């Protein structure tokens, strides 16, 4: 007899997806900022402080390292040394993978375990030797894991739950990546610096080439923001991520099933709200829109727990 997903395991699957995506997002943000730093004509402060702010680590970092912000130190801090570091994301991904070992697949487990073993040993060496290769390697691992979920797991609730986590995390991370630089982006004294920052944000989201195909030669702030927020065909846009997340949640908890209805309705409202956003409000209230996305996806997390993962609904 097949059994619907155990509620507790559902929670672990969701977090597994989240943490792999978070590790990937951290690597993306660091590699792009590092590359920008090479020729951006911006101070380390201007480049790296927003990265710390986006991670919510500005206060603890500044308390630990008073004095001028140093890019290399920020990278080390966000990769290894703080509560939301790349390392802690990978560890958490692995812990969750261990809890769902019997529900994911052998290949998914092996890839996550290998990433973890690599990171703690050879990864540290590569970080010192070739930073760029290190981040790329992390990203490759993340994409390998995502690919393996699609190609080796049953396409059932477990896969939907894992991707629910990936997609919600992705929406939040993309919102943060845009928000990191939103002030510099719209208020940059030098338009060339603004354009360069926008291109950097596109690169963080693997969106540089897709954007160029949709909007050739039009890399302005509002265009980039619109693309990353609302582009229906781009798999890392916020709207795409949330629409897919809603579809996954609907398969996990279809209408009429005793659990997950409140979370589903909440996510539906968020998607509808995104659909209704007017282009001109993007320029006037981008920060407000992004904050709403980040806060609302966070609220969804606690709703999912109450309504689905705690196993209390319907009991």
């Amino acid at each position, binding site marked *: 007899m097949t059994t619907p997903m155990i509620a507790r395991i559902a929670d672990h699957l969701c977090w597994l997806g989240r943490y792999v995506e978070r590790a990937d997002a951290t690597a993306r943000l660091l590699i792009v900022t590092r590359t920008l730093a090479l020729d951006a004509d911006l101070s380390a402060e201007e480049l790296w402080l927003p990265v710390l702010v986006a991670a919510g680590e500005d206060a603890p970092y500044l308390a630990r390292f008073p004095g001028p912000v140093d890019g290399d130190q920020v990278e080390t801090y966000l990769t290894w040394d703080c509560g939301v570091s790349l390392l802690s994301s990978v560890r958490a991904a692995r812990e969750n993978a261990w809890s769902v070992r019997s529900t994911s697949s052998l290949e998914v487990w092996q890839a996550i375990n290998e990433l973890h073993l690599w990171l703690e040993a050879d990864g540290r060496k590569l970080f010192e030797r070739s930073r760029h290769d290190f981040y790329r390697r992390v990203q490759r691992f993340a994409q390998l894991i995502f690919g393996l979920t699609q190609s080796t797991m049953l396409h059932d609730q477990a896969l939907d739950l894992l991707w629910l986590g990936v997609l919600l995390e992705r929406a939040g991370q993309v919102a943060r990546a845009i928000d990191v630089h939103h002030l510099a982006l719209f208020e940059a004294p030098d338009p060339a610096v603004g354009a360069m920052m926008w291109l950097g944000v596109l690169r963080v989201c693997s969106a540089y080439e897709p954007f160029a195909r949709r909007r050739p030669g039009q890399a302005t702030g509002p265009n980039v923001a619109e693309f990353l927020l609302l582009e229906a065909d781009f798999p890392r846009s916020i709207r795409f991520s949330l629409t897919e997340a809603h579809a996954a949640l609907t398969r996990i908890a279809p209408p009429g*099933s005793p659990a997950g209805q409140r979370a589903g309705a909440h996510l539906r409202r968020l998607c509808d709200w995104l659909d209704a956003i007017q282009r001109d409000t993007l320029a006037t209230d981008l920060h407000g829109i992004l904050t709403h996305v980040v806060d609302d996806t966070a609220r969804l997390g606690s709703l999912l727990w109450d309504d689905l993962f705690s196993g209390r609904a319907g009991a």
Partner: protein
Amino acid sequence: MTPPDAFAGYTPLASAFDELFSAPGLPRPAFERVAASLKAESAADFEHRQALAEAILLQEGVTFSVYADQRGTEKILPFDVLPRMIAAAEWAALERGLKQRITALEQFLHDVYGPQHILNDGTVPRDLVLGAKHYLPQVQGISPTGGVRIHISGIDLIRDAEGIWRVLEDNLRTPSGVSYVLENRLVTKRVFARSFAEAKVSRVDSYPTKLAEMLRSVAPAGVDDPRVVVLTPGRFNSAYFEHGFLARTTGAPLVEPGDLFVGAGDRVFVRTVRGPMPVDVIYRRIDEAFLDPEVFRPDSMLGVPGLMRAWSRGTVTLVNAPGNGVADDKAVYAYVPDMIRYYLGEEPLLAQVPTYRCDRDEDRAYVLDHLEDLVVKAVDEAGGYGMLMGPQSTAEERATFARQIQQTPRRYIAQPRIELSTCPTWDHEAGAFMPRRVDLRPYILSGRDGPWVLPGGLTRVALVPGSYVVNSSQGGGSKDTWVLKA
């Protein structure tokens, strides 16, 4: 010039039976063909294979003692790359003996928790049985749902200096280790592909299918398509790898106590994303003391309140049944040959180890006089704990045990130290094979159709030179076990 083979300098111990060699350079007849194939390898080859095997186990996450420290250091169960081999005829005899033993033990449990004939006519002392730590008065009078009590057992066997197999102890509660049998096999197939193919080894990978069939066969009456779950204490348990392994290879969800609750009609339910679903069979890997706080440990936060009530009402099958510990008590062990005669009218096929019961005056006097020569064991401990290895003990340790024996004689038994058989085992320091002591834990599944024995089992090996203790908690490791086909 070819380098000398890796067994060139191997010398079996004079005092023990070596599983592979009857004399230096002389393999036992049943293993000549495999030995010839293995001898084609140099020491460097084995060193390489050993390293490869360890890397595979770590990568696959075949680990234990997970989260033993804050850094999440994990260890693989130490693995020795050279398999232990058992000849076909020898295995056939062992298999018959194991089935006989488990059949008698099953009947003993039904009798003890039922009419108690064997106690009433004095064949086994009543006080010994009812005074056993793991006798559960709460189970008295309950017929187990599904009809079986010992669904899954592991019987520890050793071989003495003459090569005679002897039962060392029975594990009838939640025996562990079978996942290593299957994982070890995957590793040896990778690192010893050629020798393995030539040896013609009985397969072990049918275990999960047999387990799943057995679990379905013991569902409550009237349930055609039972929902089976594996119950683990959680991911911090040292055997969590195995719990997950059993769940995913049988297709049963892996659940923790908090995932289950007892609801309407004393039925057990599991919390899912589609609401509560009824559960029919629970393969529980939780000690029975933590199964149900309503019955066993009111102070315990673990367990599923009401689970024992559901079981006694027959709405759910527990695998293994609660209460089996009374039959694997180390003092009750001494009476298993009598049980076989009593219930089956047969002579025991398997020998066991002579056992002194410290609650008998003359036995206790002998034990206290001969502590230096004996192995003393607490009857209710496992994993190599609560044990005195007389010949290797200090005067202080012996004094401690003497005191404990006098205080609680029922808690102790003593046995002569058996010269456990040895297997050639790779010694990384020496860069050579050395004789190291082994035991064997075969696994037996018993469903509605009677017992089935997994060919082989877990060979545990004492990796420390001179050691007799094979437990993983005490520096032991494991080997793959090859039962050769006839």
